[in-house]
């Protein structure tokens, strides 16, 4: 459904993408993980036609985003990182404009708005001005808007950034539901737990390059099952173990300050890049 081949992007002095290649299958929930400035948003902007690539190829639904931009755009919905709703218009008006931009018939737009407002739990807010909605509601409205024209692929760029944990969980359930309905989801995030909870596969990007790509389970299993953080004077060292027993034996030798815990995706990123995601 999504194909990137040696995708490159350079701005005046910065090389934002240094040859990114990956393939996302139909129906997959793919998380694209990395620190701020790693190249996540640039990748999404190229895939959705907002940014011109400097080299390589990007395809969505079998269409090259540069050669057949209109066909590629018909296949996709985008939820950008920042809120980009018309605050002076109502929830319904925002959705109507989106539907018309995508060439939907008026009757289809009406039916789809009923369906989607219920889907994202905003049916009571139909006539409300967007400026009166909370941050979480605006995010859900943006997701509804991106789904209005029935895209095969949904791009979510940091969909939960700045939201409180309860609302974040609600958005996660919504994203899961979208995938279960057959939509391919390409999600960028710098929240490790978001990728762990949601994704079928994860790609780690750092400084414009993919440093690891696999299922969260396999990436973590490659390190081990358990981790021990050993605290030294100005430092902390992490060791990985295949089972809890061997981790405990190691811990007994380092009685002065340690934490025993499960291996997570942060450990994977740290191992590959030597730095933390967030």
């Amino acid at each position: 459904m999504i194909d990137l081949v040696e995708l490159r992007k350079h701005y005046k002095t910065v090389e934002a993408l240094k040859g990114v290649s990956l393939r996302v299958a139909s129906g997959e929930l793919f998380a694209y993980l990395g620190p701020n400035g790693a190249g996540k948003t640039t990748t999404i902007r190229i895939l959705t036609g907002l940014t011109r690539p400097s080299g390589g190829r990007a395809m969505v639904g079998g269409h090259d985003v540069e050669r057949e931009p209109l066909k590629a755009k018909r296949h996709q919905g985008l939820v950008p990182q920042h809120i980009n709703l018309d605050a002076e218009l109502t929830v319904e008006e925002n959705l109507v404009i989106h539907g018309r931009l995508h060439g939907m018939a008026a009757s289809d737009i009406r039916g789809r708005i009923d369906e989607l407002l219920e889907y994202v739990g905003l049916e009571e807010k139909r006539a409300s001005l967007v400026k009166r909605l909370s941050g979480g509601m605006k995010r859900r409205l943006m997701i509804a808007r991106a789904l209005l024209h029935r895209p095969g692929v949904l791009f979510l760029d940091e969909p939960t950034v700045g939201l409180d944990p309860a609302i974040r969980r609600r958005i996660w359930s919504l994203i899961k539901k979208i995938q279960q309905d057959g939509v391919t989801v390409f999600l960028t995030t710098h929240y490790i737990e978001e990728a762990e909870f949601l994704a079928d596969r994860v790609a780690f990007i750092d400084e414009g390059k993919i440093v690891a790509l696999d299922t969260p389970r396999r990436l973590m299993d490659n390190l081990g099952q358990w981790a021990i953080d050993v605290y030294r004077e100005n430092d902390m060292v992490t060791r990985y173990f295949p089972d809890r027993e061997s981790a405990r034996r190691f811990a007994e030798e380092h009685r002065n300050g340690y934490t025993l815990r499960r291996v997570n995706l942060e450990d994977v990123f740290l191992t590959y890049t030597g730095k933390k995601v967030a």
Partner: protein
Amino acid sequence: MSRAWLAVYLREMLILRRRFFRQLFSWSVAPLLYLVAFGYGMGRHVTVQGVDYLDFLIPGLAAMTSMTQAFAIGSEINIARFYWHIFEEFQAAPMSHVEYVLGEVLAGVSRAVLAGLVIIGLGASFGVVLSYNAYFWGAFVLNSLVFSGLAVALAMLVKSHADQAFMNNFIITPMAFLGGTFFPLSHLPPWAQEMLRFLPITHAASAMREAALGRTPDLFAYILLAVLGAAAFAGAVFTVDRARD
């Protein structure tokens, strides 16, 4: 061509509807002040080129409005682009650049026509009823097309709200006062008259005044405005493409 341009146009009109009374007030204030200052202030006794000054002034004000209100679509785009990030919604839609520009340009023209009707209404309330015929509205719409297209093109080139204000101050304001809106160009030195002949507003104001006073305007003005309108539209399509990173 799809009908996505209608969505762009619809959005601008919905926003205009929501702000309608504020907008109506804003469209009325400046012309009202001009009418009071130049109409009552200078008196009904002043004549210019053989007509009452108010009869001379109203078509000039209409020409100025067709320019300023059409150009104001640039400020709306600027806010949508840099503050609300709505422009990305258009960029991500399956819509050509031509369709986007068409929607915005028509919105600019519609704003200008509404503001023009306000001027005519205000003029009538001062007892000035002129001949608002097809020649008048033809020049009005063509001038709006020129400045609406120019506004879209420049809105794609600017990088901030401050740049947009710069455009208004250095392009529109001088033209508003020097393009034959408030006084006949024949009062200026010959070199200034020659320079001002290069401004579209000069031709628009002249054609609209001739039409409003019941005379037949020079068709050259219409041809020139149509050519400039097409050039501004093409420029806008080009700059929309350039607006991608």
